[in-house]
């Protein structure tokens, strides 16, 4: 394992991607109205329930690990506020982004729980003097002028955009290391200063987010129909394919670049990380979910076994994808 960037980095990058991807999917369901399609979500929509509620804790846990890894931040916590002040630093962008995103994610989760559990809604409204019963759907609203559903839509819209930004930021964070580790800054298109990792991590985050909320959560919820049709399968197949293409581009361009980047790619394909790559990422993260979703899409209905298998394998491969990128880092040749 690398001396400076270890498992801790892989975990918090994974958590950042999973949490933001889950919220992005919940927001998608909220904004497209699928959350309220009663035939698919008769009582509780597992996608929005899980996606909105776990996002905040997961991303927050990732931030805690990030702070833990920042030795100086632990030893001298008063320096942490300084992280807000370096406008040109990618780290500062992320600090601001996370500072806004995490409370918003918790708020979204709370609103979703209020929607699902009227008793919680009533408990909250009793303590909010401006809360009223929404005459349109009978739910309580913490604001007089807005229904709970409308508030959720606003929060979901903002949170969804921020979730995409957080997912992308996990890639920006390490590609910002720049030329020190050429593999991390391998461009998406050769010779253009657009790194591949933000795109790869964004797609991977959406994929793992969908795996957690749609594949796993919806399958595990026994009551009612899982909110799944062909659309979810096609989306997932698109994400898996896109992730594979971008990962292939990353490796190919790393070879084209030569030097340390090529050595990293060589390590991944045939070297020290080859088993992690071929087994834990290609098979677990691409082949199994791809076959499962193709099968489910062909059947046109919910398949519990494919949902669980592809969900678990996608989430696990998402973790190993981050690990692989971190572990294969090689400093530029001196």
């Amino acid at each position, binding site marked *: *394992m*690398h*001396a400076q960037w270890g*498992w801790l980095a*892989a*975990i918090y990058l*994974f*958590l950042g991607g*999973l949490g933001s991807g*889950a919220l992005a999917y919940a927001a998608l369901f909220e904004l497209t109205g699928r959350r309220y399609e009663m035939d698919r979500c008769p*009582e*509780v929509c*597992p996608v929005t*329930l*899980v996606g909105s*509620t*776990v996002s905040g*804790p*997961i991303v927050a846990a990732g931030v805690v690990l990030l702070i833990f890894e920042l030795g100086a931040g632990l030893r001298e916590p008063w320096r942490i506020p300084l992280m807000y002040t370096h406008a040109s630093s990618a780290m500062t962008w992320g600090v601001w982004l996370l500072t806004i995103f995490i409370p918003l994610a918790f708020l979204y989760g709370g609103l979703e*729980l209020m929607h*699902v*559990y009227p008793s919680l809604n009533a408990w909250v409204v009793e303590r909010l003097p401006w809360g009223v019963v929404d005459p349109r759907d009978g739910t309580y609203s913490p604001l007089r002028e807005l229904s709970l559903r409308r508030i959720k839509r606003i929060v979901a819209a903002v949170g969804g955009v921020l979730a995409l930004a957080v997912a992308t930021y996990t890639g920006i964070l390490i590609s910002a290391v720049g030329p020190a580790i050429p593999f991390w800054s391998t461009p998406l298109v050769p010779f253009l200063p657009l790194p591949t990792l933000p795109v790869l991590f964004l797609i991977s985050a959406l994929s793992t987010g969908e795996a*957690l*909320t749609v594949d*796993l*959560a919806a*399958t*595990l*919820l*026994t*009551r009612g129909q899982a909110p799944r049709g062909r659309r979810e399968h096609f989306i997932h197949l698109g994400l898996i394919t896109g992730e594979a293409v971008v990962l292939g581009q990353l490796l190919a361009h790393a070879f084209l670049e030569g030097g*340390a980047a090529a*050595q990293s790619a*060589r*390590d991944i394909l045939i*070297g*020290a*990380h*080859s*088993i*992690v790559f071929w*087994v*834990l990422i290609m098979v677990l993260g691409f082949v199994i979910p791809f076959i499962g979703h193709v099968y489910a899409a062909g059947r046109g209905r919910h398949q*519990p076994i494919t949902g*669980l298998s592809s969900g*678990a394998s996608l*989430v*696990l491969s998402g*973790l*190993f994808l981050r*690990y692989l990128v971190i572990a294969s880092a*090689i*400093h530029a*040749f*001196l």
Partner: protein
Amino acid sequence: MLPSKWPSWTLILVALGLTLLTVGVGLVLEPAVQAITPQAHPTRQVGSFPPRLPYAAPVVTGPGAGACASCHTSEVSLRGAGADASALERLLLDEDSSLTLHGRLGCVTCHDGNGTTTDIAAAHENLVADPSHPRQAGTYCVPCHHDLASEYPEDHLRAPHRRILWGIKEDQEVCTCANCHGPVAHGVDYLASHQILSASMDYCVGCHEEQEVPTERLKCSGCHIGPHDVSAAMDCETCHTSVQVWGKVELAVHPMKLNNGHANLECFECHLKPNFRNLSGFSCSDCHPKPHEFGSEDCVQCHDGADWMEIDHTGIAHEEMWEPYRYHDHVACAGCHFAGYDLSTECSSCHPPEVEASRAPELEPTPPPATSGDEMGALANHITGRLAGWRPTISVEALYENLNDGDAANDPFIISVRSREHYELGHIPGAYNIPWRRIADPEALSALPRDQQIVTYCYTGHTGQVAATVLNILGYDVVNLKFGMMGWTDDADVLVTEPFAAAAGYPVEAEANELIETYKLPTLDTGESDAVSIAQVRAQAFLADWAPTISADALFENLNDGDTANDPFVLSVRSPEHYAIGHAAGAYNIPWREVADVDNLAYLPTDTEIVDYCYTGHTGQVAATVLGLLGYDVTNLKFGMMGWTDDADVLAIEPFVAPAGYPVETEVNRPE
């Protein structure tokens, strides 16, 4: 899938649990996978040029670790192999050292030997103990570090790597890479080693001294790139005496004498970081805004640096540079050094002989002939003679210096021409009192010495100048104190009048107005025959009720009241050059020394009030007094152009700034 008894919210916990489980699985799975992944053994690639080291995978300690680490990270194993305490210190490595950048290369990458056996003899066969030795570095270090630089400007360091590696004599093979960079694979980070090098040079100096490196090769610039923009001829030792602590600079020499305020300055207050700006060619005006356009950028060419901010005490040896300066010491700096002036010392630069020609080159009328036999002509000619070469003012500093030089013999006879009441409030020590309106009275004149210089003073310099002008015409050696008590004392109770504060900022024009129209000269009828007597009688009569000054506000209001019928005839008595720079709208020009010339008097109206002005009010007051004695209706602009315009170029002199704050006395002095 979940038990139906479980409430929906348990799904949230399940999801979080799955996330946690995923991380746990990853942490368990990864080492197991890595354990079965074939790890490349580091080997050197030979036969290629330049020789390149293939990337070596991290050397993993613990299970599956290489043979080298299995022994060299274990004290027990090393002791078992016979290592004593000193050998242990050298051979026992921290496991973490394998995680450094160089440690990940693997032992045999740099040390050769055999990394696949635990047999001590076989493992150390062909071992290279110090791969950073100059003879080995070319094989083990340079293949990667083949682009070694000799200079590292960001660290201000020179590192003559090539000379160290290949240029050292046979008997001086002392510099290995590790000497400076440390055992990079054994726990010393290569970047940190650079920082250590730049932070302290004790190690470098100590090693050089130990190896008896010739002292001439221990010059600072041998290792350091100076941060200052200095010439190559100046080595660090030129200025710095401390060779151990650069932050504590002790100057060996300084090319500029650091006196007065300069002595307390830090280096970088003048020689700005980071490039030690303009160490050579440094001029005063780089720091001190030059208050005037004339002269060199290097102030010390004129000023001695002692009290150069004091305008009237410039420390400039004008007398040595220009002998006629003694006739001009009353003129402010910019009076001669005005913009565009070439600092020529030719009189014609300021005193063109053809003044009239320049004023009215083509329409020169013929003035009426002056009759030398009448009183007017006699007095005018006399005054013109008295004004030629007369120095009308003395500065407060010069007077104070004279009074306090310890030589009473050269002290002047000082007359306060202020009122008796104000004289008693305070006056210059030793001054007598003759109010200016009575200066020509016989009893007053009888008290004045003929063999001693007289200094008159008043409130702001104007009525004192009236008195001085009269006395000068009457044949006395007299000067007026410039700015009067306003320049001498800062005691408002003694001054009793408003001092000059600021210019009104009224407009000026540069277009010359030609004197064309002529007038009949006034007629004087005193009954006296000689010019001095005529002047005395005229002065007694004229001064009795004369209003000697008009304020700038009053003049401006008159000129701009829309009634041209009451406009005065405005006369500038400044030099033609300064008149050309700018003058009050409609003003004509006759220099004050020439104002009594009958040829010039012919241009002055006798049916219109004349307002004349000069620089600060003094020479204008001379001219006004002269014209008044000659029968003209005249007054002087108070404070002259100093009170009219705020344009320093037009003013062309140093305006009044502040009183000197010299002492006064209240004891009444009576002439013998």
